[in-house]
């Protein structure tokens, strides 16, 4: 009986929508000089693609630019992808 699907339950999987990195048109770049490691970018990142030590996982960063927009030091710049 239990394999019967009575209701919608989604199980969390890394990259449930596949590697969202391919969605990027612009890439965030962190300028280590300006950055004071406040961690806001990591907190705001909708894909949780920024690690605690502020390294960006470009497999999953979808280039939404929220980190750049929220960074109080303007240390993140959105650069065009030269695809």
């Amino acid at each position, binding site marked *: *009986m*239990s394999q019967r*699907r*009575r*209701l*919608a*339950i*989604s*199980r*969390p999987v890394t990259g449930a929508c596949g590697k969202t990195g391919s969605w990027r048109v612009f890439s965030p770049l962190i300028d280590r000089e300006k950055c004071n490691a406040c961690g806001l970018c990591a907190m705001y990142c909708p894909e949780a693609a920024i690690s605690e030590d502020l390294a960006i996982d470009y497999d999953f960063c979808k280039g939404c630019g929220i980190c750049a927009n929220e960074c109080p030091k303007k240390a993140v710049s959105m650069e065009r992808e030269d695809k």
Partner: protein
Amino acid sequence: MLTVATGNKAVAAAVKEAAPAVVAAYPITPQTEIVEQIAEYVSSGELRSQYIPVESEHSAMAACIGASVTGARTFTATSSQGLQYMHEMVNWAAGARLPIVMANVNRALGPGWNIWAEHTDAIQERDSGWLQVYVGSVQEAFDAVLMAFAIAEDERVLLPVMVNLDGFLLSHTMQPFEVARAGDFIPPLHLPHAIDPAAPGGYGTLTGPEDYFKLRWDIERSMRDSAGVIRETQERFARTFGRKYGMAEEYRCEDAEVIVVAMGTLGREAEVAVDLLRGEGIRAGSMRVRWFRPFPRLDLSGRDVVVIDRDYSFGFGGVLAGSLAAAGGARPFSVIAGLGGQEVTYEDIAGFVRERRPGEEFWFGVNGDV
């Protein structure tokens, strides 16, 4: 031990026997004594439940949903305006396939403001996926709550069950009542989709057009399967406690030429009308519909049918009458009576039968000038 108690006290006593892990409820006339009594059982230690007083009926059902999804047995109770306020969560509970049991003390909907008996409140929840049973006596209120847990929690059902009792006419009426020890009548609850910290999941998540309808079908499939589970549970109840219940209670229908169909206390008072009519040579019978969802198949063919609706669906008609007409068979004489506690006696019911006009609708007490 036989005693005398109100419908509300009987419901609370049954909840004590079922021993839910969580009771979350908001008080409202005429349901109040149910939740008051349960709170007393909890504070006196007679019932080891977590009683959560909430800030509204919407929160009451939300709390029940949160509790039930952990696999905990859960109960709540409400009435009328409260049930309406809870409506969104009522639907959620069914969609989330949570076997929550709720007692609803049927009461009219305002305005006009009215605290007396009417079925429209629960009937407005008929499409929600909840099973619904309407009881006719204090003992039946106790019995139906016990059975509701066993039915809701059966793996072939896993749908919430609403036990309806008439406001004041049952909730506050004292009748003889036998408290039965539930013992192991209600098997322990095993919820297949209970949340599990070791296997986290997203519940009620986005379900696209290609999947959603399948899950809704599964609710209907379970609703249809529930009829069998109800019969099984009622038979097991009769073997265990000696009291027999059907999907509907038939009274002197075998050779009846006309059958009165009603729910709740009116269904029982109809039996007295049947006896009266039989005394006048009118071969009448009555069927008190207990299970309104899943809607039962009634054998009414070849006989006049008088349906008494203590409810109304504006622009359509009595819902019980409409449902029976839709299920085939002759169009009933649809009597709208008892709204907002309007008094309807067995003599009135006998009058409906004597002056029946099949296919027509009659609002009791309404004459030309109203």
